[in-house]
């Protein structure tokens, strides 16, 4: 394992357990570019999952239900 790989693994978080506010606040306040990107990816993953569910199961969900 290279030093870069060790550094990457040390900085890698399990963001699947983080709440929305934790991800949002980290994106807004952190100086860790890699962590910010990971938080954005996690938020986008959840949003994609939601849209996928909505498209498959409702087809008529109103926009006002979303934030």
């Amino acid at each position, binding site marked *: 394992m290279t030093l870069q790989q060790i550094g990457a693994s040390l900085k890698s978080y399990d963001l699947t*357990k983080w709440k929305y506010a934790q991800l949002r606040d980290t994106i807004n306040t952190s100086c860790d570019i890699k962590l910010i990107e990971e938080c954005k990816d996690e938020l986008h993953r959840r949003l994609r999952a939601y849209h996928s569910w909505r498209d498959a199961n409702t087809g008529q969900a109103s926009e006002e239900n979303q934030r």
Partner: protein
Amino acid sequence: QALIEEAMTSWTKQTVERVDDLLESFMGIRDNQLAHVIVDLARDKSSVDEFIETVASSSSLGHFQFPPDFITELWSVIR
């Protein structure tokens, strides 16, 4: 009978609302219909482990990849 149905309706409404609150805290999204689906899914489950397994393997909810801790939170407000 009418009183029981009224109580059930009231319970369902309150529970769906609380699940919706949890969804908002986890995803930043409120969706009454999604909350309803989750409450319905928990109805006939006898344990949190069974509920976690059901949500994780659900064809419609599996994509969310909800972590077990969050599903346990959902369970605690539903049951």
